[in-house]
């Protein structure tokens, strides 16, 4: 498999950190530096404790840091308790909800969806990014794909392609000007989801065919929630739902399980990697 020389997570951490600082200082995100620090601390602490509890030889904070930064960018709450709970559940899900050596859900996605299902007083503000930040973020995201030659970017391309067909197809059917679907895509939350969440190599199916199937399912599900049910957070709900189908997709379309290059990561919890037929 074509692995990048530098851990792509370092690039992701840099982009997400920059976006968070810009969001807090310039875009008036409903989160302050203290709350962000709290999320980062709780997430890393939980990672450390779970790592110790599961006897991991070395705790790699990079994945936890990405989860924490994503939580900072997406999760909003008045009270501190639901934020702490979401941070703990996010990391916990990586250790507890596992199937065949992989965690089942993208941790941030699970943390937020779980809290929403519990009826916790949290919310996600998808449109608070502004056109300039969204465009800069888009460039950074595509830049990341190029720089990191991310081996599992196929899921991002497949999702993006399918979602574009849904959004533009709907606009065409309704006779709407292209400004409408373009505006729907100018959304920082959508980019964060596309490039950082659905593309999580630890939770997507192992085979390329499986990942493309998975990505199309998530896009259709998100479109259904947003454009048929008229409910917000369609992307998050859809990803959480289709993540549960990953074991089935892996069984039907087996492939080689992904492993971050750095040692001691959560991947060490995995059962030994079985070499599977590449599709």
């Amino acid at each position, binding site marked *: 498999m074509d692995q990048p020389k530098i851990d792509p997570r370092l690039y992701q951490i840099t982009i997400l950190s920059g976006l968070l600082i810009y969001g807090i200082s310039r875009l008036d995100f409903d989160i302050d530096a203290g709350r962000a620090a709290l999320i980062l601390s709780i997430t890393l602490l939980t990672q450390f404790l779970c790592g110790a509890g599961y006897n991991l030889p070395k705790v790699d904070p990079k994945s936890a840091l990405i989860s924490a930064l994503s939580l900072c960018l997406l999760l*909003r709450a008045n009270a501190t308790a639901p934020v702490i709970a979401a941070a703990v559940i996010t990391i916990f899900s990586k250790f507890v909800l596992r199937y065949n050596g992989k965690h089942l859900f993208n941790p941030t996605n699970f943390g937020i969806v779980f809290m929403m299902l519990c009826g916790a007083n949290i*919310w996600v503000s998808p449109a608070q990014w502004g056109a300039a930040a969204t465009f800069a973020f888009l460039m950074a995201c595509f830049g990341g794909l190029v720089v990191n030659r991310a081996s599992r970017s196929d899921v991002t391309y497949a999702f993006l392609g399918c979602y574009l067909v849904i959004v533009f197809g709907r606009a065409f059917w309704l006779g709407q000007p292209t400004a409408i679907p373009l505006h729907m895509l100018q959304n920082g939350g959508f980019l964060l989801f596309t490039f950082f969440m659905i593309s999580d190599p630890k939770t997507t199916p192992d085979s390329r065919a499986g990942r493309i199937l998975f990505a199309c399912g998530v896009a259709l599900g998100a479109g259904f929630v947003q454009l048929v049910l008229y409910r917000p957070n369609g992307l998050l709900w859809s990803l959480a739902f289709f993540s549960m189908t990953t074991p089935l997709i892996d069984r039907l379309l087996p492939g080689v399980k992904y492993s971050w290059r750095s040692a001691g990561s959560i991947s060490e919890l995995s059962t030994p990697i079985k070499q599977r037929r590449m599709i």
Partner: protein
Amino acid sequence: MIRKTIFAATFFASVGLLGGLAYSFCGFYVAKADTKLFNRASQVVIARHDDKTVLTMSNDFKGELKEFAVVIPTPTLIERDQIHIADRALLDHLDAYSAPRLVEYYDENPCMIRMFKMEAGPSVGAIEEKALDKAKSLGVTIEAQYTVGEYDILILSAKQSSGLESWLKENGYRIPPGAGPVLESYLKQGMKFFVAKVNLAEQAKLGGAYLRPIQIAYESPKFMLPIRLGMVNAEGPQELFVYALTRKGRVETTNYRTVKLATDLELPLYIKEGFGPFYQALFAQHTEKENREALFLEYAWDMRWCDPCAADPLSADELRRLGVFWLDGEADSNGSRLIPQRPFRGAGAQEVFLTRLHVRYDSAHFPEDLVFQETADRQNFQSRYILRHPWKGTDECAEAAAYRKTLRDRQEKEAQTLASLTGWKIEDIRNKTGLDGIVIPKKWYQKLWE
């Protein structure tokens, strides 16, 4: 044929100034910037809970009543019982209660007490048989027709937008060019059309020159306001005030940025005489800063109280008449007002959270309809501006000397704040500000030969 101008989803109300000053912890309330400051303004109240929505719409139509008409896309078929005519005073009250406000403080004598430090408030028609046949031939179904109050109302559904467009034109509605595709888009989304015009005979019986707000109640997961039809061929941007009355918390848009207005800022004292122009300039500046692509939060507050109160909170009866259906009958059923100016957690709890959004929109910057979501955010917010009157005494003490030294800096900072908020020239502001309030202490020899 009478030609009626379509005001699709555009609505307005005016407000009488409330007399007197109300004392509050967060300063003396001085003035407010209500919706009548803005031309071409519409007001919409959305009371929503569990997909049940009551929409109250008011517009600022000032022409001949016979020329008035609205065409509003609705998510469901609206029956007679789902239409109601509201009292305009309700909207006026809601506007007054939630408008951006100006408060003032007076500095204390620094020699007597320590400088008072402001503690920030909690962040807080009838259709003939022939006409029916004509409608049918155009593929337009008149689902229902009612006369409610001073309005003749038609509920239309159609197979094709061209038929609907033709029907509206043939019936005297001035449909702007380019409306066809927009109508088509709403039709394909399964939406119906609520068409209202003034029944002049009924209007004459009622008397009065203005039109009362129309209310419709429906149940739909769609939490949105269709603004696209109103933007077709619109001359310049339009103003819209959205008051969301919800149970859980603040409402925001999910497809446009919702930005909190700059608040709790100290301004030069002369703004007291021109709070309206100040607020207009501030809003224009905010709009430009956000590239005309955002909605602005003017007020978000638990309706049990206010601080300072630009007007009393609405009574449970007023809230019910604005569509708040979830209040239980026992609490505050006599329409009495709740205790303003402090949180009240007792038996009369309203469980109503008000969000006031203000948007200046046009088709270039707002291609999509407004889509909303209710958040769990119960943090109170108000756009509030402060005047601090300097202490003008002549007492001498170390604190007074220090106070006088900082006063000029404070006034300069207030001038700069005003310039940055409004885009007005700093030189003009400095000229108007002058050195008001600064007393130059007399030298010992001046006092000697007084």
